[in-house]
Every structure is written in C-alpha cells, then in structure tokens.
C-alpha cells in the first residue's frame, strides 16, 4: 500500500510499504477514505519529538471503511468509522474512569519505558506519533491496523460526509476538551492563543458553551479572519501588545480563562522564546512555551489555564510565582477522545458545530509530502489539509 513515511527533519515521503494485517483478536483493518495532517504532525516534521524512526508511517486523524475484523472485534465489514487518535483498551483503571488517553495497556510493554522515564508514567498508545507512544503505524496510509477496534472507533451514519465527521478523530474533541478544561461560565471572557485548527475548534466550543466573549490571538490574518467569522474578537500579536489589550478588553479584570492551542513551537520574538529556539535547534530539548507563559501572566487571579497544545519536554523561566500567587488552576492532557465522540457527533448532525469551515486544501494521499511542506511554510492560507487516498492526482 501507499503511506506517508518519516525519514528525517522536513523529509517525509509517500512510500510503498507492506499492507497491515489482523494481529490481535480485537483488531480491525480500516481502508482509509480521509485522513488529515494535524498541527502536531508538524512537530514530527520539524524533528522536535523524540523517538521517531525512519520509515514510520505518520497520521493520527483518519476514518474509513472496515474491511477486515479480528475474532473479537465488534465492527462489521463495510461500516464507516472514525478512529480516535488515542488508543484505549477499555478495560484498565484509567479507561474505567473515562481518562482514556491515560490508558495503561495500549502502549506495548517494551515501549513504555521511555515515556515512563520522561514523565514518571508511561503514555498511552497513539497512532503515528513516535515510539514514545507505541510506534503504531499511522493513518496517512491506504490501510491501518486498528487495535481494540471494539472500543475506540465510532460508526458514523452514511448521510454525513467524511469532511463533516473526520475531525472527531482528534482536533474537534481536542478543541472541545480545551474549552471544557477552561471551565467556562456565561459571564466569562476567554482568550485563546493560536488560531490553528485546535484553537478554532476551542473558540467555537467556548462560544457554544456560552462564554460572553472569546478573544482569539494569532499573527496570521486569514486565521484571525476565520476566528472572527466564528464570533470571536481578535488580537494580532504582531500589531498589538497582547497583555495590555487583554486587560482593556476584559474591563481591567483580566481574562477569566486562557487556552493555549499553540504548544511547543511558539512563534514570536520575545527574548525567552528566542533562547528556547536556540536550545531546541541544538537539541537540548527545551519546549518553546512563550504563548503559555504569556497566557499565565494574562489570566486573572483565580482564573483557569487550559493546555490543549502539545508539549513534550521541559521548559525553564516558568512563571511559577504567578501560578501560585494568583491562585491559578492548570489543566492539560492528551484528549480523552472516546469521552466526547458521541455527543460531538450529535452536535455535528444538528448543526451546532461547523466542522468544515477550516479545510483549505484537499489532496490525494500521493501528494502528502507537498501538503506537509505547504502546511508548514504557508500557514496563513494552508489552514487544514485533508488527504484522500482514493482521489485522482
């Protein structure tokens, strides 16, 4: 089959590789009809996530048709399913308390040591996202082996197009959980750093949850325009002093909750970010957390800090004093996708959520490498890339 494989920093290629097979009894094989490039895939593309190996198939946002099932899969051939990017067994302590992205069993035993050393506990398995998270082959391929297929995938009705439901795999629940972690109340002003796909979905979710004002922060005019269309106020950090503006726009109180949808490769020319960029470049493994640091200073005392953006390592110059002295609550985490899929599918179906407005480009899978390059280099116009294995080149 054809699949998008990683070969090094800024080197991804569509290769021909062996088709997947049923390996365990709860597996299913999915024939991919649509798959997307995630902003977090750009961290792999930039080589800032450790333990990616040459030849690894990337991609964790995908959906398709069930073509083969193991003896204990509950899926049926021919069903259309969206597959959560987090692999969850459904049987462990964490799955039982609905913290699915903390699944204890989906990362193979021999792969758990690296993340356990880094974070104190092993991570769960994720599709196509380095060997820290299991080394599972990803979804930017014609076929994918899906473990625990009786638990994760959600069957979608035929009358909903791929593009409407594809993002249930990651960015829609990730944006939703980002807003949920901000514990939004009706009178709240909420600020969102980053108007990439997750930020845009967090903005939309915060509005659906009833925030009185949502302020979107970015520097790409087109992305800010998309946020504005959703009903957000906007700040372009190239033009405006963000902290001063947020104080003024929240009546001098400060914003009630902040959402960092940027993650470990923040843009911007603050001194700390430049230092972190140098460290990242020489391989010291520092996360560039300048958006998050700014958010912590901007949020009002007693406010909430939500982190859907991806971080993988350490950061320094951390505003710990601000966290303690202002009494902040901080929440992050990989998304517990399975917790949200059904409710969000209903919200897509009844029109509460629009999931297609951010798609800028549709490409055949064979042009995936171009998709990566443009999504990386031309972020203003390339807001979301959907790859279609069946599309004519």
């Amino acid at each position, binding site marked *: 089959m054809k699949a998008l494989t990683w070969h090094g920093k800024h080197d991804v290629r569509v290769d021909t590789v*062996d088709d997947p097979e049923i390996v365990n009894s709860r597996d299913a094989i999915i024939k991919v009809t649509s798959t997307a490039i995630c902003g977090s895939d750009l961290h792999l593309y930039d080589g800032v996530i450790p333990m990616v190996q040459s030849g690894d198939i990337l991609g964790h946002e995908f959906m398709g048709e069930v073509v083969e099932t193991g003896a204990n899969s509950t899926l049926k051939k021919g069903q259309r399913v969206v597959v959560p990017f987090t692999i969850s067994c459904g049987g462990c*302590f964490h799955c039982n308390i609905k913290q699915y992205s903390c699944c204890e*069993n989906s990362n*193979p*035993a*021999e792969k758990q040591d690296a993340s356990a050393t880094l974070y104190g506990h092993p991570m769960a398995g994720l599709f196509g996202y380095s060997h820290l998270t299991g080394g599972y082959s990803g979804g930017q391929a014609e076929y994918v082996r899906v*473990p625990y297929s009786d638990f994760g995938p959600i069957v979608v009705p035929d009358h909903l197009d791929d593009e409407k439901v594809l993002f249930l795999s990651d960015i829609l629940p990730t944006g939703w959980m980002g807003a949920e972690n901000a514990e939004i109340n009706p009178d709240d002003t909420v600020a969102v750093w980053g108007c990439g796909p997750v930020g845009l979905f967090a903005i939309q979710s915060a509005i659906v949850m009833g925030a009185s004002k949502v302020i979107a922060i970015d520097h790409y005019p087109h992305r800010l325009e998309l946020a504005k269309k959703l009903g957000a106020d906007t700040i372009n950090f190239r033009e405006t002093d963000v902290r001063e503006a947020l104080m003024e726009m929240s009546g001098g109180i400060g914003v009630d909750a902040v959402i960092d949808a940027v993650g470990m490769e923040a843009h911007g020319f603050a001194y700390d970010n430049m230092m972190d960029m140098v460290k990242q470049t020489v391989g010291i493994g520092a996360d560039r957390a300048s958006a998050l640091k700014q958010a912590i200073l901007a949020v009002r005392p007693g406010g909430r800090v939500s982190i859907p953006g991806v971080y993988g390592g350490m950061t320094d110059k951390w505003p710990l004093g601000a966290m303690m002295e202002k009494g902040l609550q901080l929440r992050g985490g990989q998304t517990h996708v399975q917790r949200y899929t059904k409710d969000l599918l209903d919200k897509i179906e009844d029109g509460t959520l629009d999931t297609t407005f951010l798609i800028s480009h549709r490409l055949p899978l064979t042009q995936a490498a171009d998709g990566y390059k443009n999504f990386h280099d031309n972020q203003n116009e390339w807001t979301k890339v959907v790859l279609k294995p069946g599309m004519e080149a």
Partner: protein
Amino acid sequence: MKSDNRELGALAGAGIALGAAAVGAWLSTREKKHHPDSAPGWTQRRNFGDYEVVGRTVTIRKPRTELFAFWREFQNLPQFMENVEKITPKGSGGRAVWTIKAPAGQSVDIETEIAREEQDTLIAWRSVEGSDIDTEGRVTFEDAPGERGTRVSLLIAYKAPGGKVGQAIAKLFMREPEVQARHDLKRFKMLMETGEVSTSARRKDQTRAAQYQQENAR
C-alpha cells in the same frame, strides 16, 4: 514486628521462608536498619548480597480469584513471560520445569517446586536443589480499594551460580532481569484486562515473538 505495611507486613509476619537466609530482606521492612518506613523491602537503596532482586506491583481490574487461578496454571505463564519458552508440570506436587529461551535457539531448563501457596493470595516457588540457577519467585494477590480490582506484586530473586558454565547460563538468564520482570507483569495485566498483549506490529511477522523465531531459525 514494627512494620505498618499491611501487605508485606502480613506476609513477613506469616514467616514465609523462601529458602535462602538473605531472602527476608526483600520481604520485610524490618531489615531497614536506621529508619523503618512503610515501603516494600525491595525498594530499599541497598544491594541484596549474592542475589539480584526484582520487585514490581501492578493493579489489575479483575477479581483476585481469577488472576490467582490463571497464574497457578504455570503452563499459562509463557503467554506473558517473554523469556520463558514453556513450563511443563512434573508430577502432581506442583513441581515444574521452566524452559528459558537463550540465544541461537538454545534453552536452559530450571526445575522449581512450590515453596508456599495460599489460595487466591500467594504463590511462592523456588528452584530445586542442584539447579544451575538458584532462583525464587513469589506473586501475591491483594484486593485493591473499591472497584480497582487486585494488586499483584511479583518478586523474583536470582543468585549467580559459581563456575564458568554456571555464570554463562546466569548471564543469559539474568539479562536485564528488572526490565524483563517489569515488562512481563505489564503483559500479564494486558492479557487479563484486555484479553491480549498489546503490540504495535503492523503484521504478524513483525511481532516480537515472530521476530525471535525468525532470528533463531537462521
């Protein structure tokens, strides 16, 4: 005894003798000379003399009767113990021969007997007199709070034998024993909670078991 560790305190108090004199140290917190605390003996910052000691606990969301029954059928253990090729019962008294994988398709046999057994609570085994490897193991099953299932603790000790041949065998057997025990216990948890052992292999011939067989077929 002073220990307030309920799990291990109870076990040590029951006076389980696993054979070697040094063994009490990994069971009990009493051996901590200066400041006794509640942590299991095997987490001490010390070495255990001639023995390599490995201890690990996992919580498994299954009743302990079920977990005990699975473990007590020693033939089941190779399903999650990666370096054990097979375990063959010998007679009806709980004796068994463990066939351990070694490089180049070789294997090492170790005969064990059951040192102690408490229904649904504990199984301890040890190598019989005259074995190439002096090893002892113990697995305990304890109810976890609420609906969390069962806390399973595995403790394994090995003693390096004398002589060149013995040391060569021990080297094979003890290859990263801590890593091995930790991974084995995780795989046991996977098998019990999910019915299978997780693998990210895309094809059957890429699993660890398949790759081991391919390497040794050469």
